[in-house]
């Protein structure tokens, strides 16, 4: 007896309810809309789905059992994570594992979040801060330390001091993504952003400014995973999941810093990371990557992902971002970096990297990049390119 046989897994469809600041929609409406869009994209029906994977849950989103009940799903493999954005990747990995091992044939990964009902992340109503030992983003409300952005700011301050950077260099991230947003009619922020405008942005949690924080928005997103064989029978070219690696945890890990940066419980010992996802996907390393998608809830995450996954050496990530490297036509073999996730905090984007856990760097799974991966023209391509 042994686990298996292992089937190969592909993404067969993706769909979104596009992000808006105030949708007027409930989380159930956002998740239903995303699921409908993803099923239509994959030419599958509600009754085809037998796996259900989600992060977040009530109240920001919907628990798996209420979704299954409300949508009339018949699920034989369900999983719901703890309610943070980092678990988007984990949820998709769980779906891939389930399909690979035959616990599900058609796994839907769904998220739909309504932030506008709350309007604020952090503060006295934020339960993260109630956790003994501090919140997962470093929250410690007795000392005023609150909000996920607080932890990101604390780590970024240390990083810049350790490696000798002016913190305002992080402007390269929102500047790049705003340029991309201007090519996307659905993007929420489209006004020009350059260095001068960035420096006028109010500081929210110093050294980070408003443009460094993901917007609190409402949206829904879903992707559909199935076997590669099944996906080949569906209308779109399958997007194969070629490699994965898991979520790290430990004293040396902090969600918004590379290991060994030396904040919170971390040691001060940086190291070259072993990232087996590349080899599993048949790639030699970051040089083979065309496009990188990641969860940049806060601007510094982009620098830290670059270092963690070998796009930049230790301490060089912030420099690596400069001079348009992550813009369209920049250094990643002409492909963009990370722009897709700037629009949201907890995201319906279903894959891409978190700062420590790419599923497969060679391809993009966030729904709005799915057409890009298939080679369809998207609004982000400038005419004539």
């Amino acid at each position, binding site marked *: 007896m042994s686990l298996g046989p292992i089937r190969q897994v592909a993404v067969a469809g993706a769909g979104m309810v596009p992000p808006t600041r105030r949708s007027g929609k409930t989380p159930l409406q956002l998740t239903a809309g995303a699921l409908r869009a993803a099923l239509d994209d994959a030419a599958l029906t509600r009754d085809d789905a037998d796996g259900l994977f989600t992060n977040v849950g009530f109240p920001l989103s919907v628990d798996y059992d209420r979704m299954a009940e409300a949508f009339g799903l018949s699920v034989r493999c369900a999983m719901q994570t703890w309610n943070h954005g980092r678990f988007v990747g984990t949820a998709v990995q769980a779906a891939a594992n389930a399909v690979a091992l035959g616990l599900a044939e058609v796994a839907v990964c769904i998220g739909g979040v309504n932030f506008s009902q709350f309007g*604020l992340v*952090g*503060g*006295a109503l934020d339960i993260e801060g109630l956790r*003994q*030992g*501090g919140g997962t983003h*470093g929250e*410690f*409300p*007795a*000392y*005023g*330390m*609150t*909000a996920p952005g*607080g932890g990101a*700011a*604390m*780590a970024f*301050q*240390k990083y810049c*001091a350790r490696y000798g950077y002016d913190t305002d260099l992080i402007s390269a991230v929102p500047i790049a993504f705003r340029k991309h947003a201007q090519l996307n009619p659905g993007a929420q922020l489209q006004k020009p952003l350059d260095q001068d405008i960035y420096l006028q942005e*109010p*500081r*929210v*949690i*110093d*050294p980070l400014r408003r443009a460094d924080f993901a917007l609190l928005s409402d949206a829904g997103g879903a992707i559909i995973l199935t076997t590669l064989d099944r996906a080949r029978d569906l209308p779109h070219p399958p997007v194969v999941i070629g490699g994965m690696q898991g979520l790290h945890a430990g*004293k040396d890990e902090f969600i918004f810093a590379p290991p060994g940066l*030396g*904040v*919170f*419980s971390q040691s001060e010992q940086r190291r070259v990371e072993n990232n087996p996802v590349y080899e599993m996907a048949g790639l030699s390393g970051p040089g083979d990557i065309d496009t990188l998608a990641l969860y940049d809830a806060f601007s510094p995450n982009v620098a830290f992902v670059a270092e963690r996954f070998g796009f930049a050496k230790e301490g060089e990530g912030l420099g690596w971002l400069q001079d348009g490297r992550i813009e369209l036509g920049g250094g990643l073999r002409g492909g963009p970096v990370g722009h897709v996730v700037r629009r949201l905090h907890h995201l319906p984007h279903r894959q891409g990297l978190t700062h420590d856990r790419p599923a497969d760097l060679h391809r993009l799974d966030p729904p709005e990049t799915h057409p890009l991966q298939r080679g369809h023209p998207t609004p982000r391509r400038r005419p004539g390119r």
Partner: protein
Amino acid sequence: MPRCRTCGSEFWPAGPVCPRDFTADLDWVTDPGTGVVNSWVQIHKPYFAGDEVPYVVIQVQLDTGPRLTTSWTGPQLPRIGEPVEVSFRQIADGIALTEFGPPPPDQS
């Protein structure tokens, strides 16, 4: 601060086992309360009703090893690496919070 009697190191946050060696023979010791600023942020958004903004939160690296999230008492913005020492702020009966700032000149 909690301290492991097996390996001798202090650790934070507190817990029932030593994170270094996973043993459970612990005690609590009085830390000298000296260290340096490891990092800091300045919060401008009024997350908590009644708090005056902006305010500073620092992370102190104690000389004994652990890092603490705490409040800043210095007259200017902190500099990473600057020496600090603890004082205590009584906020209610039996409840005190730490705060850290530059040592007074006559004690440096």
